[in-house]
């Protein structure tokens, strides 16, 4: 995200704090898709993720006056979504949900081994990315898709910066292991 957009986001938050509904619409239009996808990757349920996106932005409407600008608005939004997604997972007994929904996803297409037979490494990689644990999925997504820095990921997830690097490293090792199990050798590790 550019510095200009970050500043513009902050201006929108200041207007929202004054009750500006139009500013809320602009902010929603700008961020709702990415925040929704982040939540969806965590809860793995579109309906829940859609409910969460409304809750996240309603929180923004209520809490805008308390936003201190110490982090980017997008970082704040992702942190709120993460909190709500984890709460939703706890409510639904996340372990059960993980297994259940992972199975649902696997049923939708070929497993990684079959995919390899099709010589579709990219597809297999995406498949394995979906099989990562919630903890590993979120860190991979935050770094690669949401383009968050080490410091920002640390703030969103609530862990030290060194742990961020280590956790991503192990997520990648796990991914390599899943691919290896599917017969894909990438030369690392």
């Amino acid at each position: 995200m550019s510095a200009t957009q970050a500043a513009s986001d902050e201006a929108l938050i200041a207007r929202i704090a004054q009750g500006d509904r139009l500013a809320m619409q602009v902010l929603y239009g700008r961020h709702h898709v990415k925040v929704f996808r982040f939540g969806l990757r965590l809860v793995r349920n579109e309906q829940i993720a859609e409910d969460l996106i409304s809750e996240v932005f309603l929180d923004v409407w209520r809490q805008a006056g308390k936003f201190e600008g110490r982090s980017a608005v997008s970082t704040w939004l992702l942190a709120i979504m993460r909190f709500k997604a984890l709460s939703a997972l706890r409510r639904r007994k996340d372990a059960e949900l993980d297994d259940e929904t992972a199975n649902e996803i696997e049923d939708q297409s070929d497993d990684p081994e079959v995919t390899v037979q099709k010589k579709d490494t990219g597809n297999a990689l995406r498949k394995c990315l979906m099989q990562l644990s919630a903890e590993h999925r979120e860190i991979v997504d935050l770094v690669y898709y949401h383009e968050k820095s080490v410091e920002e990921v640390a703030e969103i997830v609530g862990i030290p910066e060194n742990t961020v690097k280590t956790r991503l490293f192990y997520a990648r090792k796990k991914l390599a292991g899943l691919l290896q199990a599917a017969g894909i050798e990438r030369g690392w590790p």
Partner: protein
Amino acid sequence: MTVAKRVADGGPGDVEGLLPWHAAGTLSARDTRRVEEALASDPGLAKQYAVIRDEYAETISLNESLGAPSAGAMHKLFAAIDAEPAARVPVVRAGLLARISRFFSALSPRMLAAAGAVAALVVVLQAGVIAAMLSKDDGGQSFQTASHRAPDAPLTRGLGVESGPQALVRFAPDARMSDIAEFMDSYQVTVVSTSRNGLFRLRFDQHKDLPGLLSKLQGERIVNLAVPAE
């Protein structure tokens, strides 16, 4: 230590741990230089970076395939916003007092109490500083009676037991205050009383010879009258 050895050992190396952020382009300029230099000199690291670039591309591809929330989510949000109590009023050019008022009202009771305590402490400290300054000015004594006299300080009034000849003195109408002050200073005068007709009853503790003193006073330019007091 090689990359393969580090992986076998556990965590990532310093630069190795930054590779994913390098792929995403979110490193600082300094770290970017460090990573690029390491990539240029370490084939193992470069190989791993190629793997990371694939992960990066596929993560984006996966997330982009997830779609977006329906319009219903937005309608639900704004319905909820419309149902919120209209507590917030758009602010138009708030004045200084309003801003100060908002500032204090935004403070929690605990912060407000702490701020009050700090303010009280400042007042006490200020009083202490003033008292210390006054104490220093009077030579370290905590108080001074009207009869006390510092060695070289002029006295204009005294209620002590010092004895000395007293005289009634009237100053010339054109005498200036500065002249009178200088006079009292030079004679070390204590003003005993004043009368309505401009007579001052003065005591001269540093003089014993009243006739001589009176004669000297009469010679002063600013003195019209100098007679012995009863």
